[in-house]
């Protein structure tokens, strides 16, 4: 496959995304673990099987010695772009966003990896936390109810494409797992809060209302998802995340 003629639409430290006529190609750099690439393909395939309308994996390939995923292209704008360009309708977009997330949470994919296992691994890998903090987080995680809902893991408006027909599609299933939907919501809230507390509040209020979930219950997940986010090693976020992590479970 020749990538030179293709349009480069995203460039990250570990991947480049090219756009073709009816598909995109995610090319991972050599150091990116093969298993992660295959896992993303598998996750996507499993979510496809739930019946959710998402861009399908078309091919897992090697291009110039690099692993690549060929994924169906969905034409449209990201919800993030639309929220920025059409701020007056923010509330409407947020409703659409929450509805889409709830539709996803209604799905089951019993073979997806388990969210709790993933979070446990992430907490254990955090060397910048002392043993006590990790113990507290793991105890907190252990006490949370274990569910089996499809969770995106990185559900934010930049991962939602609004097609020309107005239909919304969720993309990028690299972090998909099955688990507690409130943890997924907590992660989304955190992603908003890192950028814009107002949007975060708008989001969480809508989510709690539409899903009939108590705010405290989502709050209980915040230290855990903050720890998971900390594994992404973003220095700019560190202070913010540590503040969320350092809470005291009544003893």
């Amino acid at each position: 496959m020749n990538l030179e003629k293709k349009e480069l639409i995203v460039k990250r430290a570990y991947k480049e995304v090219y756009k073709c006529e009816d598909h995109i190609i995610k090319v991972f750099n050599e150091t990116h673990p093969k298993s992660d690439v295959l896992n993303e393909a598998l996750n996507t395939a499993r979510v496809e099987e739930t019946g959710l309308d998402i861009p399908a994996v078309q091919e897992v390939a090697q291009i110039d010695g690099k692993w690549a995923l060929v994924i169906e292209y969905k034409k449209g704008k990201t919800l993030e772009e639309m929220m920025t360009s059409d701020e007056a309708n923010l509330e409407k977009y947020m409703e659409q966003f929450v509805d889409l997330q709830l539709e996803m949470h209604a799905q089951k994919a019993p073979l997806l990896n388990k969210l709790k296992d993933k979070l446990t691994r992430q907490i254990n890998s955090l060397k910048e936390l002392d043993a006590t903090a990790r113990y507290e987080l793991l105890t907190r995680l252990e006490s949370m109810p274990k569910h089996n809902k499809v969770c995106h893991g990185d559900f934010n408006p930049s991962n939602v494409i609004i097609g020309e027909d107005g239909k919304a599609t969720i993309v990028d299933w690299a972090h998909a797992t099955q688990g507690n939907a409130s943890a997924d919501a907590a992660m989304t809230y955190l992603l908003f809060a890192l950028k814009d507390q107002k949007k975060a509040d708008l989001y969480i209020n809508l989510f709690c209302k539409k899903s009939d979930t108590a705010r405290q219950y989502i709050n209980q997940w915040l230290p855990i998802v903050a720890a998971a986010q900390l594994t992404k090693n973003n220095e700019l976020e560190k202070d913010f995340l540590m503040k969320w992590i350092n809470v005291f479970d009544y003893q």
Partner: protein
Amino acid sequence: MAEKETLIPEIVDSVETLEAKMKAMREAQKVFATFTQEQVDKIFYEAAMAANKQRIPLAKMAVEETKRGIVEDKIIKNHYAAEYIYNAYKSTKTCGVIEEDPAYGIKKVADPIGLVAAVIPTTNPTSTAIFKTLICLKTRNAIIISPHPSAKACTIEAAKVVLEAAVKAGAPEGIIGWIDVPSLELTNMVMKSADIILATGGPGMVKAAYSSGKPALGVGAGNTPVIIDDTADVKNAVNSIIHSKTFDNGMICASEQSVTVLDSVYEEVKKEFAYRGCYFLKPGEELDKVRKTIIINGALNSKIPGKSAYEIAQLAGVEVPESTKILIGEVESVDISEEFAHEKLSPVLGMYRAKTFDEALEKAAQLVADGGYGHTASLYVHPSQTEKIAKHAAAMKTCRILVNTPSSHGGIGDLYNFKLAPSLTLGCGSWGGNSVSENVGVKHLINVKTVAERRENMLWFRVPEKVYFKKGCMPVALDELGTIMHKKKAFIVTDSFLYKNGYVKPIEAKLDEMGIQHTCFYEVAPDPTLQCARLGTDQMRAFEPDTIIALGGGSAMDAAKIMWVMYEHPEANFEDMAMDFMDIRKRVYTFPEMGQKAYFVAIPTSSGTGSEVTPFAIITDADTGVKWPLADYQLLPNMAIVDVDNMMSQPKGLTSASGIDVMTHAIEAYVSIMASDYTNGLALQAVKTVFDYLPSAYENGANDPIAREKMANASCLAGMAFANAFLGLNHSMAHKLGAFHHLPHGVANAVLLTEVIRYNAVEVPTKMGTFSQYQYPQALKRYAELGRYAGCQGNTDEEVLESFIAKLEDLKEKIGIKKSIQEYGIDEEYFLDTLDDMVEQAFNDQCTGANPRYPLMKEMKEIYLKCYYGK
């Protein structure tokens, strides 16, 4: 290999070492389980002493390691955990027999539970470790501690102090253990492998404990709300709260989190708080800064617990004097979205204003719901306000409700109230998801085995206080009513036959002679009805007698008993009084006390029911057809007069039927599971008498006054026997046979008699009647005893039984009893149609319970069929 297996790890830091450690501890506990109370008490004493001696170093260690709390207060907590716990349980029996009552044959034996898993928090690490290890030693349990990582050194040190002293005093090596390098994996493993969990920890840990599958004594979060009522002693209230809230910088889970003050004393309370060094955060920026500092996303900032008010203010960027005792935020919302409504585990207090006591209660209830279900609530009020105290107690869903008491000190017990058990593990009941709702103590760490030895029921012999008998005795007996009891008004109950034939005259003459006013109700018919009894009762109420004289057969005496009840207790309900019972002493209904208005005299005119000496009466509701059988010793007549002069002219049929009824009473009383030495003699004598005199009484009537008198006595003797030993299946089945097919009661008994005897007299019955005294099937032996006494011969019990049955059949023939139910003209089809109903109702008859053989319904059906066809 063998050596390796017995190796006890020095450091527990992995699954393997923990497994080995717990295995060794279980072995040690097995030895410990054999220790006597004396040995255990010595160990308990030495361990408490050692912990007490180390209270200062341990407190210093705890503050140094956790960076929370106040050394001087932690010293008190350690001191408390050692001294108060020892004092509370020093004399408590926890080994072997802890309670015994030989008379009742009941013994309680304490066994240890085994291996206790203890989760210990950072807030009170050393004191909780001392507390838990001490109560485990006292109960002969091994205890493995999972310390919190941030307090592991001091927790382990406290456990070590207790362990060393215990071992020195004789406890098995390693009876107290701990995880040296705590992790969630090992904590979970400890909880899953132990026999019980003493979980003190956060909601996460408590949840983990409860989901481990092992019984757990967990505690939960508190959010103690305080109410200061306008009747409270404000100075005492405020200073108690300050004292409690500042104790170890507010880390006791029972400590006050918010205070709701009644409007009229609000300013006074506020002034006192301020005067005593508390800082009121200025509304706006100061309050907000503290809000955002103490709670993050609805959770407590981990930098807060156990810090001083000054430190917390600094953290929030609020300037307060260094000596500030408590930061107080005056807030309005009790909703969980208000940071001050949370548990703060630090000297930070929310303050609310309430217009009324009810509003304050509402606020407190919401604060409890916010995060303190089942824990503790507190009220300051004038002690005379008992209504408010009760209202508060009713409204709080908490397991400790403290009145005029600092809650930190109050909740842990024995400091401000000396009946609240001292403990550092406070149960929160089902509200807090706990298995206990009280302060945890030694009783929760033992299994109590109850050893119950077989005992016999107390039995009784209850008959009328006066039973007068002998031909011509009636006027003499009645004389007492006047000369001794000075009665004024007698109400006579009888039937129209007796009245018209002058039977009442001698009684009336005697009453007139004594100047006792009298009237007579003579409308009782056979199978007396409730309606008839009501009529009699109305007349009785109008007449207001102090004496009731029942003259007649069973019907008149039963009707008179019912009138007696309705006369004395118009409020009593027949349905309740007639409720079946398994044991007359345990019946649900308490029978009203009789005899407050009238003295009851029973004078029988037939020799049959024995109603003059029994506690029974049957009445039929003519409207519904329902029969109400009443049984209670309250229904015993006060005086029975058995004078054969009243019985001379009984017709032949009555003599036969009531005579065989007497026989059935005596036989059933003798083989009843409740038969006793006291009733047996009466029954034996009655059986023999009936055999000897019934044929002549039947044949010769008034011409054989001796036979008549003997039958009168037999009737009364049998009555006293079954009044106390009760009857059996023969009567159950006869009652229903009579009710369904209108056979006279005596005849119904007679046609069933020998078939029921054969049924009962088996050595291997399908089921036996249940009564403590009745040890094994023995009906055969008892029937044989009756037979022998009546003169039946035989080499074995079986032979005597056959002879006894033959003798009964012979008697029946002599007095004109037919061989089968069929011969009495009962239609076969109708009999078969009603059979199942009859069986079920007979099974349910009150008499069935005392039968020596517990019948199955299909067996009863077979008996009915055999008796119907005469085999």
